[in-house]
């Protein structure tokens, strides 16, 4: 039997970056094939070539044994290739039905085909247990349901090869289990699944074959049964990962942050945060674990002054944070910074830096009032000296203060943000997804820096979706689900299963 997909010597470069270099491997029909690698390993580029978004510079792509030149996503769809993206391609104010019909409406008059499409959708949902109402509006669906709509779209278009790009990043443990059931059903029907992920546990749980990529190349191709998480991790990274970074013995000081009965409701009255209460002490790292979208981001926004809570108190360093009497959070982050709260935001390009400003300009971002001369204008000499010192201390590359920060790699941008916040010597450091989009070498450097701060007595609140990161850094772990705290545990009690259940909304005693 011919393999469903074969990549032969595929290479693709973007400017100076070689995204794929001489990639060759096959994907067997009727199998679940995992493609694993770190950020920037080239997995997404390769799949984009398969789906017709990009064209390979050289090499051959064979579908079902026939060489194909896939020039557009329409051609990929025609060949039976479907892709479920990490960021859903759904029009939010339209129904499931409209979203599925988009692009394959069947005629100028929509009404003439609506009924037939709806019928077929219900059949597909029943056969694969997808549990989606075709007449529901996308914006009213949960994230897990929206993903099932994406899958529904591909099945409707008779996809035989289904590509899933980091599908579980936004799912709870239960939703992930449901998804895997659906994938197993597909496999039984003879469909081929390509799973792109960086999560080793998933690879081991569901795939038949694994291809490991690193820096644009294939570094390993094994049957899942013949390998282990450690082996895959080593191949992914290229060297044994330091399993534990040095840290001082746990010796927390006085309480720095006390959150009491914090509630947040959005404009529609939906509860985003309910009854949040915890304490954070000097010299400890508390990590908030949980699947993205369960209130952690909103909690960070409140604690950093970017958003007001609906009700509740937060005491910082003995005094209540000044939420009272305000109608909006305009300008509040500046007050919080003054009090001694530093913030490394989750989305650094949206919140943390100004892409078009230089590296030097970004080192004073948020602290621009502190570097004035006696005429109220910028003291450029002092700013320059400080910037150079930071770039050296944090090993930012290239160490060019005048370079537009948008041109730096994600890891180096993050180093600038962390350098900036650390150098303001805060008492409390709020850190959101510090290693998202960051290369592996820099991850270690960032983790080391955070541990250094903790040892020096700073209280750190970390939000991370990566359990490995939580395990590496936390002294205590708080798990959130559905806007509530579902559990608290010390690091010694770390147990993946228990945390998974808490993340999925099960409270355990």
């Amino acid at each position, binding site marked *: 039997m011919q393999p469903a997909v074969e990549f032969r010597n595929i290479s693709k470069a973007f*400017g*100076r970056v070689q995204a794929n270099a001489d990639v060759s491997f096959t994907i067997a029909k009727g199998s679940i094939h995992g493609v694993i690698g770190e950020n920037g390993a080239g997995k997404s580029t390769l799949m984009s070539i398969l789906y017709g978004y990009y064209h390979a510079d050289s090499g051959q792509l064979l579908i079902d044994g026939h060489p194909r030149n896939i020039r557009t996503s329409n051609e990929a769809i025609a060949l039976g290739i479907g892709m479920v993206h990490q960021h859903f391609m759904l029009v939010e104010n339209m129904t499931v039905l409209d979203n599925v019909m988009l692009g394959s409406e069947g005629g100028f008059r929509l009404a003439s085909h609506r009924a037939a499409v709806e019928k077929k959708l219900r059949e597909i949902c029943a056969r694969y247990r997808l549990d989606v109402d075709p007449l529901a509006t996308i914006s009213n669906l949960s994230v897990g349901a929206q993903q099932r709509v994406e899958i529904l779209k591909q099945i409707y278009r008779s996809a035989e090869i289904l590509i899933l790009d980091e599908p579980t990043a936004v799912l709870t443990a239960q939703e992930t289990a449901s998804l895997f059931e659906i994938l197993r059903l597909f496999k039984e029907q003879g469909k081929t699944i390509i799973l792109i992920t960086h999560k080793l546990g998933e690879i081991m749980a569901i795939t038949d074959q694994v291809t490991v990529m690193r820096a644009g190349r294939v570094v390993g191709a094994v049957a899942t049964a013949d390998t282990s998480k450690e082996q895959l991790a080593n191949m992914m990274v290229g060297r044994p990962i330091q399993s534990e970074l040095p840290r001082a013995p746990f010796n927390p000081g006085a309480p720095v942050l006390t959150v009491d009965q914090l509630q947040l409701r959005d404009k529609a009255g939906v509860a985003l945060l309910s009854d949040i209460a915890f304490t954070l002490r000097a010299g400890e790292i508390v990590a908030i674990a949980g699947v993205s979208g369960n209130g952690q981001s909103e909690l960070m926004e409140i604690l*950093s*002054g*970017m958003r007001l809570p609906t009700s509740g108190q937060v005491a910082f360093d003995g005094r209540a944070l000044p939420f009272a009497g305000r109608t*909006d*959070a*305009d*300008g*509040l*982050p*500046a*007050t919080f*910074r003054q009090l001694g709260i530093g*913030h490394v*935001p989750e989305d650094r390009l*949206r*919140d*943390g*830096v*100004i*892409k*078009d*400003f230089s590296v030097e*300009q970004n080192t*004073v*971002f*948020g602290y*621009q*009032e502190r*570097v*004035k001369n006696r005429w*109220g*204008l*910028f003291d*450029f000499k002092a700013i320059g000296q400080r910037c150079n010192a930071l770039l050296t201390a944090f090993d930012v590359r290239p160490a060019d203060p005048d370079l537009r920060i948008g041109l730096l790699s994600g890891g180096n941008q993050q180093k600038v943000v962390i350098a900036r916040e650390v150098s303001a010597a805060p008492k409390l450091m709020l850190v959101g997804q510090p290693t998202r989009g960051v290369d592996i070498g820099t991850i270690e450097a960032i983790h080391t820096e955070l541990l250094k701060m903790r040892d020096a007595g700073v209280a750190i609140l970390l939000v991370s979706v990566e359990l490995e990161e939580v395990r590496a850094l936390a002294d205590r772990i708080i798990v959130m689900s559905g806007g509530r705290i579902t559990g608290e545990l010390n690091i010694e009690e770390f147990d993946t299963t228990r945390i998974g259940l808490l993340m999925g909304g099960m409270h355990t005693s």
Partner: protein
Amino acid sequence: MKITELPRWATAVVLPLLNLLSALLVAALVIRLLGESPVESMGILINSAIINPEGLSYTLFYASTFIFTGLAVSIAMKAGLFNIGGEGQMYFGGLGLTLTMLALDHTLPGWLLIPAGMLGAAIFGAAWAFIPGYLQAKRGSHVVVTTIMFNFIAADLMNTLINKLVPVGQQNPASRVFTDAAAMPRLNTLFPILGDTPLNLSFLLAIAALAIYGLMVWRSPWGYRLRATGLNGHAAHYAGVRISRMIVVAMLVSGALAGLAAVNSIMGSTHYLSLNFPAGAGFIGIAIALMGRQHPVGIFLSAVLFGALIQGGFDLSLEKPNIPQETFVFIQGLIILFCGAMENFYGPALLKLLNVGKKG
């Protein structure tokens, strides 16, 4: 080594120049279709606006107004706001200036009247920009449409108000003439070669305004916050900027600068308030801000260029009735198009040119 991004000198000088030339090329085509020679027209224009000393004086006189309206649009653009209301803000600023003069010009000496007039113009100009700014900050109402509406409202409102200021017995719909004390000192007293032209102290004030603008926007924390707001509102909020206040203040400053443009027209030239005295200066400010890329030097050069177009265009329309002054409104539109909406049109070609012969 192939470069992947255009160097600064290319984006700051070469591209704007190419864009300007494109606009002039299209204009030249239209002039040809109107039956005139573009080269001859250009010659008349340059002669009238640059070479002739009195003409040059008029050019700089117009440029003084345009520097202010150009600054008005520029500073709002730095905050991410497209303030199209300069025309109405200048008009209303003229009212403030006039009311101040009518009240004080018999009692105060010249050296007090000038700052008083400037203050009146700035305050009224700012006031006319306040509501659009406030609505954008608090209600999300798009400042583009609200300022356009305020231009129309100003035209109608001022129509009524000016008619109330007409002295008894006068036919001309204008206020009474100010006393001699309320006149801006003319530069021809220092440079007789300028002839009987209205180039006045406002020109030096305009240069000062450019310097202050440059200093404030690029060298002060306020300017840093302003630019951050315009580039990325989310991040600016993270950095502690009070966004609502920044938007309102940016519009107030913008309106004040547009209002100050009235000082040149009224205190420097006519000495009374007349209907529609802005005569499109507010819209020319948009072209200047875009062509000059909101940079002090760029604004200055663009303002002088437009001053030359207006001065030269006036003489040209006298000699060539087929090229009326409205032709320059058309050219203004072309410049806004090429410099503001198509600014990167030549970018890819220029990049290829710079990479010729380089290895990838």
